[in-house]
């Protein structure tokens, strides 16, 4: 069964996961930003701002934003690396990448956009000062391969910053489960017209490695000085590691 992987709580052939995740994002692309605000009560903006402060972008740097989605992170990063820097947007999903590309342009910024798989990045080794991925790693089929790729494209001294849902503090688990499995799918059905997509979201969060496991994966991928920053009692966490 080694060619099976998780798609939420389902086990699906590895070859199918990318397609099924793509279908989820195709369905929710139009309402993606609104849903993010509703689901997190706007907190996702704070989480992204925190991730940016952890990434610490500087003028002149070259940054890769993997699974850029609607480019919330990329737009903020692009402004911080000016003048002289650049932020590359990548996403496996064309519709989401187009939204991100247009969003960045609407803010008067230029950023190259490349549709590609996070597990096979079409960039030279040691090319970026920083790689970021916000709420994207969870959806990748082989997280270890994706982490290895992101590490590969980092310059020595470069940092990888991951913002992702994580394991919530134990006493909050029941309330969080109720919210995830009852409220979220209902909200998804009402607003985005798609309960299944948001059920997938909740399930995929539960299947994602917890803080310590992900930190260990970063180390296995070759990163050093790995740190974890918990936000909202572990609902999300920021991981940062350096390629030394």
């Amino acid at each position, binding site marked *: 069964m080694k060619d099976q992987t998780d798609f939420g709580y389902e086990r699906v052939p590895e070859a199918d996961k990318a397609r099924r995740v793509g279908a989820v994002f195709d369905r929710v692309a139009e309402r993606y930003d609104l849903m993010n605000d509703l689901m997190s009560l706007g907190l996702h903006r704070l989480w992204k701002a925190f991730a940016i402060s952890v990434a610490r972008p500087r003028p002149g740097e070259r940054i890769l934003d993997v699974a850029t989605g609607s480019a919330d992170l990329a737009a903020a990063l692009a402004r911080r690396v000016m003048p002289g820097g650049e932020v590359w947007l990548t996403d496996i999903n064309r519709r989401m990448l187009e939204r991100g590309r247009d*969003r960045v342009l609407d803010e008067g910024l230029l950023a190259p956009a490349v549709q590609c798989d996070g597990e096979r990045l079409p960039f030279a080794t040691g090319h970026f000062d920083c790689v970021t991925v916000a709420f994207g790693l969870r959806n990748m089929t082989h997280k270890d391969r994706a982490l290895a790729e992101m590490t590969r494209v980092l310059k020595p001294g470069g940092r990888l910053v991951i913002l992702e849902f994580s394991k919530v503090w134990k006493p909050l688990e029941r*309330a969080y489960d109720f919210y995830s499995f009852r409220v979220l799918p209902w909200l998804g059905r009402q607003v985005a017209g798609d309960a299944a997509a948001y059920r997938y979201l909740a399930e995929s969060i539960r299947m994602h490695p917890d803080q310590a496991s992900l930190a260990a994966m970063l180390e296995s991928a070759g990163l050093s000085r790995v740190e974890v920053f918990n936000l*909202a009692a572990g609902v999300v966490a920021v991981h940062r590691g350096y390629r030394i």
Partner: protein
Amino acid sequence: MTKGLIGFCALAFSALLVVQTADAARLGGARSSGVQRSVPKTPPAATPAKPAQEQAAPNQAAPTAQPQPSGLARWMPALGGLALGGLLGYLFAGNGLGGILLLVLLAVVAVLAFRALARRGAQSPQPVQYAGMDRQTTLTPPPPSAPAPGDAMPTAARFPAGFDAASFLRGAKMNFVKLQFANDQGRLEDIREFTTDEMFEALERDIHERHGAGQQTDIESLDAQLVDLATEGPQHWASVRFSGRVREVPGAVPVDFAEVWNLVKPADGSSGWLLAGIQQMH
């Protein structure tokens, strides 16, 4: 003494104003220059500027009514804040009562948000009722057969079939940003690539006047609308209205801008679109 001080302050303040004006730095120096064409003063649709991803269907008649917030909608921000506070309090304090309250608030906020959304969706195509016109309603868009003089022409008939306005405008925006950057850096060869000879000379003069000193133009938001597309003799003309907010001096407050760029392209396709003139709209 006091008079002297006031006079000095006034002088210093006016000097500051002069410096800021002289530094007005975006491409073309916020002045009209080059080829000027007859273009509508207002954007083609009376709606506020929209981001690129919403412009895919520029020909739709735009509903202009801004629905007033209903009773529930008025309370949304307060309820949102309450819910946020509840959530934060719950997450950081973590007692059972907070959890119940949080879930109740979440449900309330979600229902209200959805209702507000549904109402907005339902309201916008409805005719607008003006004050003092009891029960009478009037459609806001004027009948297409009688456009008011000076108004934007209906865009539907303007652009030839197959003309991909969304892609064209995306390219126009990219070139707008690129040219601002080239202007900031004094990169004349980049400017020449995208401009006609006449326009290039004007822009080159601006750069020489500041002795090639570097500057920084930060665009905070950018919208582009195609206001005219025409073929005259051997040339295609496109007028693109750019608007948004720009910070022309680092640290200054960003200012609104609106200007039309007149772009020209030889009908034989011997070159791409070139900037031929800039018209200020303010």
